[in-house]
């Protein structure tokens, strides 16, 4: 899954905190998949420097207005700026990384 080698010297990018927000709808398969995929991704590539907030619109539909949520699941990269929005159950990790503009952590 590694995409080549890279300088291992830590940069500012590697230490900043990623703030992510995931909108889900109850226990729907897509919601559960998305959460599972995101958790896995973060553990792999953002170990120790991520913060995932999960918002369940079934519990509080009015929250959908905050980020103009239409599609479920929706992942929002709140930090680092600029904000990015990704929809889908994140089943394709490399594409998710690309969409998040997250450089994959060095394998191993």
């Amino acid at each position: 899954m590694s995409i080549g080698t890279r300088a291992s010297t830590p940069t500012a990018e590697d230490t900043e905190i990623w703030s992510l927000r995931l909108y889900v709808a109850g226990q729907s398969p897509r919601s559960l998949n998305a959460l599972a995929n995101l958790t896995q991704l973060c553990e792999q590539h953002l170990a120790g420097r991520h913060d995932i907030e999960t918002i369940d619109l079934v519990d509080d539909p009015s929250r959908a207005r905050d980020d103009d949520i239409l599609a479920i699941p929706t992942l929002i990269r709140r930090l680092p700026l600029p904000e990015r929005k990704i929809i889908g159950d994140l089943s394709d990790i490399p594409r998710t990384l690309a969409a998040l503009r997250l450089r994959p952590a060095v394998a191993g």
Partner: protein
Amino acid sequence: MSILALPKAPTGISGFDDVTGGGVPRGRPTLVCGPAGCGKTLFAMEFLVRGITEFDEPGVFVAFEESAGDLVANVASLGFDLAQLESDGKLVVDHVNVPTGALDEVGEWDLEGLFLRLGATIDAIGAKRVVIDTIEVLFGAFSNTAVLRSELRRLFEWLKDRGVTAVITGERGDGALTRHGIEEYVSDCVIVLDHRVTEQTSTRRLRILKYRGSSHGTNEYPFLIGKSGISVLPVTSVGLQHHASTERISSGVARLDAMLGEEGFFKGSAILVSGTAGTGKSMLAAQFCDAACRRGERAMYFAFEESEAEIVRNMASVNIDLAQWVDAGLLRFHCFRPNLLGLEGHLFETLRLVGEFDPAVIVKDPVSDLLRLGTEVDVSAMLTRLVDFLKSRGITSLFSCLTSEVERSGAQHIASLVDTWLQVQTIVGNGEHNRVLYVLKARGMANSNQIREFLITGQGIELADVYVGDEGVLTGSARQAQEAKERAAGLAREDDLEQRGVELTRRRESVEAQVAVLWRDFETESELVERLLSNGSVGVEDRAGQRAAQGRLRRADPDDVLAIRRNLPVGT
């Protein structure tokens, strides 16, 4: 309502509920589509606002295009106070900010977020009506259109399951009703709005393309966005069911009334006065209004060629005082060039003004000017609706029309629409031209077939006496000559009679004189006779005495003898 009848939700939009027989299908989505600027958003908003204000059905407006602030501002000019309705908890305007440019999509997704959000809003105010304006914007945000389509289909089904009456707007696409073909998901009712410019005149039209389970008009109905929202103008949606009045009203010209079965026009009928320029059509129209005002009724005069001041002045010159009726509030003028409004605008404006003023009679002078506003078909359709509308309200209408325009089929059409058709024309001859008037058509009344000369006098219009000569009706100087001739003949007869009278008197006098002479003769004679009669006996006695006296005079006998003889009565 029968079991089979599809329940409908009235929109409250003027005219729309008439052409759909009650509104949009209740509890089902309706698609309203058309090009940009056709009035979709306004239609949808009016459906919601009137739902709240007139039918107490709270509503949710989901705006994908305009921001909530823009929407509020745009409809404020129509008198819709969205902020108030929102604070009353009857309306929610939910603006969904759709990201420009496709979102990153990774894996499977659905529109559950929209469903949950909308569902929560509906529940919050107990909404019965929902508008989604314009959902096709989503096609710009999601690249996986297959998923989007299936989600939209699910959305409409979901709305139906929730039992809300929904209006979904869509923008017209190339060769399709909507850009992304969402009409295939909304199959119950499809309304197409259009905004066309023909011959420099813009007309908005509404058509009901589809209405499952309901009858509906298939015509294109013109509609307008006026001061109080949308008004759809039904084309004879009610059919010909006007109340027919037998009441008659005066034309304002006594002798014209006489030509129309002695009583004038039917109340609530349509009258056409056609004629060439300068034949007095406007004057006839003004006199018609004057007559109505004299009866205390309201009259409305639409003038397309003259201003109010000009008409009042012109009529004042023939001693018809229209200004007094204007002051009394009985007569109202609306003078404008017809191209100011356009054909449908004109109709709508007429309907609105008539609705406001509620006149008993209206005049359109001249209706032929309207022919320039559109094609003949359009003008005919407009006039049909106008006449139907006026008839349905029992308003008597008088249209003037230039004869040269009647030749055009649009005007021909009005000739068949009207109940009474008066033709005014000029007859040229004897080095002059004279106005004549005749009744070309008068439905349902005995009418004169005579051509009458039409005079504009110091007291308005009068119809002259009829003089029929060798070459037909005599007019102008020929009539005057005939009148003079008849007057002269009359005078001669009068002279003759007078003469005879004098002669008779004279004869009587002479007869009486003769009688007097005869009487005198007779009296003289009878006097004599009577005298003779009364003197007769004296004579007999006297004869003896006379003879004795004569004897004495003659001395014939001695006195004693005479005395003896006198004592002898006989035999002497």
